């Protein structure tokens, strides 16, 4: 075992005091709606408002004191084998995370934190979400230092365990993938989203009491239009059509603008680097994130695309690992790239790309036929129910029952396309599974990094002799649906042979 570069420190440290200010500002931002609501409620009750002011100050002072106490009582210690964090004012909690169990360390900087030069340090262990160890806020340099310490200590532990091949990697960081602003613009256009319209509508509904008129009252709208809008209705059909086109156009514009803004905020300066020990990804316009993940922690690759972007040859790549990436379960390593650009990334993670010349297999025809029939049956049932209901009540023409029947046809056709496009295969090292038709997703998992294999069959599947193979993948899901039972058993036997040949604690 090689000696650590710097002697292990035992001193207890606290997070940066300026972080308190940052949190206070963050807290105030949350308080604004509450204050606005309070003022609105109290504005008719003059004198009471005055009484509330000192009370508010007392509460504010108390919460500041509690926050300070919490800050004062939270200490962390970087030891030889683990990071320890002790926290809590009344009930104390001491947490220790061993270096070998830390999947990666990510640094996150919100816009305010950047002004103060602070970072939020997250230690990803695979515990998930709230259970993860988080230190907010540290000086940016301290965050970097912690990350280095974790990396060095973990490597020492790995070296002690006999894993020396990790040291063979090249020392210099090499950029695997980066997105220039031009690429971001293209990406943003494909990220078209009308979510902002929904949000606006929701906000209008939520805060309609603040508006000077009732937005849901149709008569009132007509009255309003009757004044200045009267000339509009007088302009006739052409003007109305032009108005409709303008409305649709502005909706499109809003959609594209939302996509662009969101993409720029999230992926500005996207850089993925291959470092000595793994991958490092930096991105973000206002909130910068800096995530490091060791290459051997990558459990599987997910190649994704979209209905439209596929037509233009754009693909995305994600890494599946136990660690989480800002709430999402997989790490985006190349959200918008050409197929050939993904190849070096996959190879750096120790995976091979899925190619056409693999021995691909389709799901059983019976499975697709049954699924199509089932869709037809359900649609038929709905149609029958609609028919009965409409004939009995006479609310609308019973012919409307044809709509669910008409939907059954594309559903059945969809199964046919799925039969053509969904496929799976197995090679010496990897399992491949492709899902979907218009927007295909290809999962590529390393055979030795799987944890269990289950053959599941429903009542229909049992009679018709097909099954679904579920493979236990850390941090993700991998299933091959509707394959003949014999094929499922073959696959499972082969995969289990690879799994049992390799002990998991040696590869992870």
């Amino acid at each position, binding site marked *: 075992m090689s000696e650590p570069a710097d002697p292990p420190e035992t001193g207890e440290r606290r997070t940066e005091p300026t972080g308190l200010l940052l949190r206070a500002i963050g807290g105030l931002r949350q308080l604004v709606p509450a204050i606005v609501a309070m003022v609105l409620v109290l504005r008719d009750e003059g004198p009471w408002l005055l009484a509330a002011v000192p009370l508010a100050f007392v509460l504010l002072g108390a919460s500041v004191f509690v926050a300070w106490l919490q800050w004062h009582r939270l200490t962390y210690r970087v030891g030889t084998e683990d990071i320890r964090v002790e926290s809590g004012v009344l009930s104390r909690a001491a947490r220790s995370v061993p270096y070998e169990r830390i999947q990666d360390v990510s640094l996150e900087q919100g816009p305010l934190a950047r002004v103060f030069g602070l970072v939020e340090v997250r230690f990803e262990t695979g515990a998930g979400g709230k259970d993860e160890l988080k230190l907010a806020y540290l000086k940016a340099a301290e965050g970097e230092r912690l990350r280095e310490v974790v990396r060095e200590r973990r490597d020492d532990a790995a070296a002690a365990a006999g894993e020396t091949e990790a040291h063979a990697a090249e020392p210099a960081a090499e950029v695997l993938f980066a997105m220039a602003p031009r690429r971001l613009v293209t990406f943003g256009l494909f990220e078209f989203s009308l979510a902002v319209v929904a949000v606006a509508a929701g906000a209008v509904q939520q805060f309609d009491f603040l508006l000077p008129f009732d937005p849901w009252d149709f008569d009132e709208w007509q009255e309003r239009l009757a004044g200045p809008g009267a000339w509009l209705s007088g302009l006739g059909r052409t003007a109305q059509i032009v108005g409709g086109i303008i409305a649709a156009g502005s909706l499109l514009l809003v959609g594209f603008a939302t996509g662009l803004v969101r993409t720029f905020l999230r992926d500005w300066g996207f850089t993925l680097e291959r470092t000595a020990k793994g991958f490092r990804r930096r991105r973000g316009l206002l909130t910068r994130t800096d995530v490091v993940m060791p290459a051997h922690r990558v459990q599987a690759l997910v190649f994704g695309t979209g209905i439209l972007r596929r037509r233009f040859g754009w693909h995305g790549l994600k890494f599946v690992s136990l660690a989480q990436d800002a709430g999402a379960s997989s790490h985006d390593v190349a959200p918008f790239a050409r197929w050939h650009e993904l190849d070096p990334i996959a190879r750096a993670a120790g995976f091979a790309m899925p190619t056409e010349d693999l021995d691909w297999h389709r799901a059983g025809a019976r499975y697709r036929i049954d699924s199509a029939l089932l869709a037809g049956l359900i649609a038929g049932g709905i149609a029958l129910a609609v028919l009965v209901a409409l004939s009995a009540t006479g609310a609308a023409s019973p012919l409307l029952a044809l709509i669910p029947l008409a939907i059954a046809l594309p559903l059945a056709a969809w199964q046919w396309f799925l039969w053509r496009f969904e496929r799976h295969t197995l090679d010496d090292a990897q399992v491949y599974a492709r899902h979907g038709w218009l927007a295909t997703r290809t999962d590529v998992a390393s055979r030795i990094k799987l944890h269990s294999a289950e053959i599941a069959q429903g009542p229909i599947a049992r009679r018709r002799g097909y099954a679904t193979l579920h493979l*236990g*993948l850390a941090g993700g899901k991998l299933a091959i649906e509707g394959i003949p039972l014999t094929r499922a058993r073959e696959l499972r036997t082969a995969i*289990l042979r690879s799994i049992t040949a390799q002990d998991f604690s040696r590869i992870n």
Partner: protein
Amino acid sequence: MDESDALTPLHPNHVKAMRVATLLAAVPFVIGALVLEVAGLLPTGVFIVPVLLAAVLIVIRAPMRRYMARGYVMGEDRLRVVRGLWFRSDTVVPFGRVQHIDVHQGPIERAYGLATLTLHTAGSHNASVSLPGLADADARAMRETIRAQIRRDTM
């Protein structure tokens, strides 16, 4: 281990334990039916007869069928667990991928000397695979065997 390996059946007491559990679950429904019966909303027997029939079916027949559908194979380096009456599931967990092992006894299981063995893996699917209805001693012995198989040198 092959697919052809005969499944080891669970302990016969497992049927009794399941019957007691389903009986306890059925009691509230029977009471509910009795109350409705006493209230006399509909002709005599409309509530109580079907409920009683269903209760007899799920207490007497279903546990037996479920028991027959379950089984396991303890291999050299893997455990295979088969279960499910309608929705069959046939899971294999290699010992090398087991993160930790639980042996759990509920009150009914304890009365019948049974235990549930649960293997936890790191996979998101099948994060825990449980095998109920083992004799307590068997479950503990299996735990020891599996634990010995998990190489501990790097853990």
